[in-house]
């Protein structure tokens, strides 16, 4: 049996595995299960949008430098955008976490989705901390001196010196954002691969029971349920 050129090349093998794991209709879907029509599912994309604004505003701040963000009105504005985008990012990410926890979103083989989400949260915290100590103002100096005591108490002060501005700024501008973006990308790709977790079966059974209690005169169809996210699925649901 002859071996084709595609089988011999690692790029062909990687391509086939990637397409098998994430075919185009999963990578870029154009429909979603009906149960995704709920506001709780919006918080993930709100977090992503905030992250995009954080990265974009942070890039501009890095290009222009602290003289610009402290002493010009436009620079101060971008500094504020960066800060408040981070605040909204953590706000929406934590509410997203609450929603995913209470709907047990690791069900159905989605453990890695949960893990990448949790690791993103844990990596984003030092990313924000290194940003706070990089502000080039007195507040940043206060935070760095106080947090240095905390790092020393935790035993990592020799490796992570919050009063070493060069180290902290480099962590904040390069190392930690790259890590956050990589893990978030893995998180989103895993969601695409496994699909959005469906609601608990109990909810589905309760909804069917409620539909069964609808009077006969109104039509006995389960589709007569008036409002709220439908437990049954249309389109492309993956259990």
């Amino acid at each position, binding site marked *: 049996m002859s071996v084709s050129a595609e089988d011999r090349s690692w790029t062909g093998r990687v391509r086939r595995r990637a397409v098998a794991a994430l075919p185009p209709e999963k990578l870029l879907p154009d*429909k*979603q*299960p*009906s149960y995704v*029509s*709920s*506001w*709780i599912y*919006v*918080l993930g994309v709100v977090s992503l949008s905030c992250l995009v604004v954080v990265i974009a505003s942070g890039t501009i701040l890095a290009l222009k430098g602290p003289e610009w963000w402290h002493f010009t009105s436009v620079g101060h504005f971008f500094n504020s955008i960066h800060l408040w985008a981070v605040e909204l990012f953590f*706000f929406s990410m*934590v*509410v997203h976490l*609450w*929603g995913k926890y209470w709907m047990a979103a690791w069900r159905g083989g989605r453990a890695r989705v949960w893990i990448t989400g949790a690791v993103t949260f844990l990596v984003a915290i030092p990313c924000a901390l290194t940003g706070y100590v990089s502000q080039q103002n007195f507040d940043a100096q206060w935070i760095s001196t106080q947090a240095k005591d905390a790092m020393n108490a935790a035993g990592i002060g020799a490796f992570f010196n919050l009063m070493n501005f060069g180290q902290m700024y480099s962590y904040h501008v390069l190392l930690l954002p790259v890590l956050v973006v990589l893990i978030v990308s893995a998180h989103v790709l895993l969601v695409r691969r496994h699909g959005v977790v469906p609601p608990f079966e109990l909810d589905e059974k309760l909804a069917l029971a409620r539909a069964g209690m609808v009077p006969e005169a109104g039509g006995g169809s389960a589709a007569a349920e008036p*409002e*709220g*996210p*439908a437990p049954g699925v*249309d*389109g*492309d649901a993956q259990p």
Partner: protein
Amino acid sequence: MLAAVFNLNHHASYVHWHSISLSVSNVLVIAAMFVVFFAAILLPFPRGSRKGSS
């Protein structure tokens, strides 16, 4: 230079509970997170068509 909408030139007020010490603004943000969470679960989502796939 425009004055801040809120006067920030005073000490923050803190809420103490055992070893936990939170500023009032921090408590308000946490409360807002709870509000958003329950609103996201309870508020109806606008639907373009009755049969769901979008």
